[in-house]
């Protein structure tokens, strides 16, 4: 159970909170400091919110990873919404296409160590982020 991948379907706000909470637990298991656990949970909350706001449904996958004896956490947020038309724009601070909230992506990038975004306009978006202990 410990290192099992967690897959949380995002269909509503309660799911965002769940994903965020599960992320916090995984971060704790991976050995992150408490302050980092909560920052990771915040990043997951942002990712979940993006799914909910822009695509309405999607999923968040959380898993503990290991590379060169270093532990880390990988979070994948994917949806089959309309995709992000302009990634360059989306990664700018204060950019938003919906109700005045930022996409939060630049912030997520700052909190995490690695950030990869793949998107096909009109089809899907997949965001992979990693943070190392």
């Amino acid at each position, binding site marked *: 159970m410990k290192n099992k991948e967690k897959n949380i379907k995002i269909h509503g706000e309660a799911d965002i909170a769940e994903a965020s909470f599960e992320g916090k637990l995984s971060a704790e298991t991976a050995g992150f400091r408490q302050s980092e656990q909560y920052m990771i949970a915040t990043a997951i909350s*942002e990712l979940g*919110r993006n799914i909910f706001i822009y695509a309405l449904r999607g999923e968040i996958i959380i898993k503990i990873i290991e590379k060169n004896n270093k532990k880390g956490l990988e979070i994948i947020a994917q949806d089959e919404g309309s995709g992000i038309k302009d990634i360059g724009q989306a990664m700018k601070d204060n950019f938003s296409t919906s109700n005045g909230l930022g996409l939060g992506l630049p912030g997520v990038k700052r909190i995490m160590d690695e950030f990869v975004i793949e998107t096909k306009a009109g089809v899907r978006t997949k965001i992979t982020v990693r943070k190392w202990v």
Partner: protein
Amino acid sequence: MEEEIELSRVAMHISRGCLIVPIQIELYDEIILRIQKDILERVKDTGVKGVIIDVSGVEIIDSFFAQAICDTARMTYMLGATTVLAGLKPEVAASLVDLDIDFRDIQTAMDIEAGFQRLEPLVRPKEEPEEIEESEGEFDEDQEVQIGEDGEIEEEDNYKDEE
């Protein structure tokens, strides 16, 4: 005093002239928005001049929650009350900066007590206006003691003191 109403699972109360809103749970959007509405109603009904939102029990503040807090602060201000956000945890503050959330239009304080101190002048303005001290030094030199021709000492600013 007042009938006990459970407000959004958050027990708001009034203390030292401020509305205290302790938030101890991770919040869903719906609850956040209900708390926002409740705060505004409470401010309107009671006419308090200060609101302290205590987030010392909150570990995660994402952009939605932050936006709701900022909006609430702006709204209460329009009703005549100033909002102070008290008890931000260091990791929450770090996340908020990473998320580039602008908290400049909201006042913050270490804890509720510091929040009270911040709001004290607004909640209980001093009765007597403070004396203006600035001008004292400037006039010292100009208002020299003048010695009249008959040797009497006239202090020009004497009459001012009597006012």
